[in-house]
């Protein structure tokens, strides 16, 4: 089985190279092949041709709200890099329609178009299916929002700048326990979605680790919108907090209905809760929601303050974590390209693997030996309609 795949990959690579030669043949044919290699190193690196970067984002479908933030973040980053000069990026954004099959086609298209690196896709579900396409063709991938386990285990070309749930949730539980003196909680999660189920498993492990008693575990479907029967159950158990692993679509009615029923204890959410829509749509009910995040919007890091100001000026809205991770993603790619001063696929891969203590809007970030990002998480609580750092 192994041989044919390798052969296929070689053939694909070969055909890409041939196609690249073919298309360049008419004009500046000679320059085409080596044009992605520049001169100088680091900040002085100059590459004449824009480095092609493909981004597969969910711009329509269930994850559209995340994809839109990511597109904004990427476009802003490309603009800032353009101003910086030396190396510029030809950013090609395609929609995977929140559909893994569409994600595969988009990845195949990028591989054939000869992009140097692929960003995305938005959801872990789609990433698991599309990433092998890039891995086989030897195109580096930088995941900017996927938090499921095993994303980077798919191959040595797969990297990510997003913290996993397994990195964020234990910190969330520990800090919430310290802040509220949690002793007993009720856990709720949607059990028909891979992302929320893996989030639940991490929560369960973290709660056990911290010695917090789980009074009951209630499940629902990701399509559910009426949570009153479950919440009534939860309320009767008088927990110190309600722990929820759900996507934002379920999180909003869940939080609203919990407050309506008089559940005033903190609601601790997974990554799905980490979205300004929560405050916009749930209004006052969102107060007291605790959520761990990879990005601290209130950080006084000047890089971060500049990012927020530029984003607000360009889009007239506050950036969320997805925008920040996307912005940081392109900056990380820029650092990787500059480290070898080359936009060739393998040079970018080497560059990504070598990222250490790089200053980003997410904080000081390193890529570890598993090609996952490491940086400090932040635990936030909703106060007066915005995320504040939980003390």
């Amino acid at each position: 089985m192994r041989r044919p795949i390798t052969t296929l990959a070689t053939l694909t690579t070969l055909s890409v190279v041939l196609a690249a030669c073919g298309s360049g043949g008419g004009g500046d044919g000679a320059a085409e092949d080596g044009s992605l290699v520049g001169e100088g190193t680091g900040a002085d690196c100059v590459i004449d041709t824009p480095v092609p970067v493909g981004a597969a984002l969910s711009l329509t479908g269930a994850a559209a709200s995340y994809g839109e933030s990511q597109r904004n973040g990427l476009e802003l980053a490309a603009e800032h890099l353009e101003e910086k000069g030396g190396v510029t990026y030809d950013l090609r954004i395609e929609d995977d329609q929140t559909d893994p099959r569409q994600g595969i086609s988009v990845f195949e298209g990028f591989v054939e178009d000869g992009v140097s690196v692929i960003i995305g896709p938005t959801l872990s579900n789609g990433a698991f299916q599309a990433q092998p396409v890039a891995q086989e063709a030897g195109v580096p991938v930088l995941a900017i929002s996927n938090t499921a386990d095993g994303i980077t285990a798919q191959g040595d070309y797969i990297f990510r700048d997003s913290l996993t749930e397994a990195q964020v949730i234990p910190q969330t539980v520990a800090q919430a326990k310290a802040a509220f003196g949690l002793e007993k909680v009720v856990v709720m999660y949607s059990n028909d979605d891979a992302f929320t189920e893996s989030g639940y498993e991490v929560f369960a492990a973290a709660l056990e680790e911290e010695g917090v008693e789980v009074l009951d575990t209630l499940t629902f479907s990701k399509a559910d919108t009426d949570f009153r029967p479950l919440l009534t159950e939860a309320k009767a158990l008088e927990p110190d907090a309600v722990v929820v692993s759900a996507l934002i679509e379920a999180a909003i009615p869940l939080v609203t209905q919990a407050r309506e029923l008089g559940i005033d204890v903190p609601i601790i959410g997974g990554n799905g809760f980490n979205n300004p829509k929560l405050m916009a749509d749930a209004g006052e009910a969102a107060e007291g929601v605790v959520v761990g995040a990879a990005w601290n919007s209130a950080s006084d890091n000047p890089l971060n303050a500049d990012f927020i100001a530029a984003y607000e000026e360009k889009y007239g809205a506050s950036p969320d974590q997805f925008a920040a991770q996307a912005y940081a993603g392109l900056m990380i790619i820029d650092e990787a390209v500059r480290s070898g001063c080359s936009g060739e696929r393998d040079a970018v891969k080497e560059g990504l693997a070598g990222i250490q203590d790089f200053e980003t809007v997410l904080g000081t970030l390193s890529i570890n030996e598993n090609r996952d990002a490491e940086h400090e998480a932040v635990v936030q609580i909703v106060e007066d309609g915005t995320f504040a750092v939980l003390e």
Partner: protein
Amino acid sequence: MQQLLNGLFIGSIYALFAIGFTLVFGILDRLNLAHPAVFAASAFIGIELVDAAGMSIWLALPVVFVVGGLLGLVIERVAFRPLKGRPDAHFAGLISSIALAGMFIALLQWRYGPGTRRFPADAFPDTRFQVLGAQVTLLQVAILVISVLLMVGLTLLVGRTRLGRAMRAVAENPTAARVLGVNVDRVTATTFAISSALGAVAGALFAMNVNSAQLGMGAAIELKGLAVIIVGGMGSLPGALVGGLLLGLAEVFAVQYVGSSWRDLIAFGLLFVILLLRPQGLFGARRVREV
């Protein structure tokens, strides 16, 4: 107590939705599968009225009722009337109404996009009551009252008015009704309009109850609506009412006494048991066609 009320609120919406379903079935012997699309469309339209036009939710509901009625006329005219002369009119109407439902949903997606839409956070009155230790919002009480009023109104309409008499005549025998001077086409169109208007109000109330509207919300309730009218007795109005409330309560108590993962299994299993004991449904007569 809280769970009982939870079940009643959601059950009354199921009932209102199912009554629209069963009305068309009982009188015209047609299954209108565009009904769930009307349910979803009206939720989005209701949100649009409140959000963009700045209407209060109390004013938006009658508007939604009228819009639903108009959609009903469209459904009758486009999906059912052209096919009524065919020997397989039942089946053809079923299929064409599914097609029309698909078109409605596509139009909604074109207009509103695929995302979840919500009422603005301050659209609802904040009044809450304590009823025997249970928390109840003014909105929930309104949902129950509106649902019951509409259902009582419909029962009176069918039982006491000239139009109701014509409806029952058509249900009995359309040919005979026509011979006796009943304008069958007009009664048919009116029935569709009333049915869809009720489905539309159910959709708007559902969106208010859970504060979210999705394109798939009609499909989610479609199965429940069908289950309710079968259990209640096909075409029986009181059957749909009782069936809807029963399903709402069954779901809630399944959560309380068995476990949340078993909710649908228990609720639908219970409905099966009822059908085994009473195959014609709770209120269904042996002669199935009635109003």
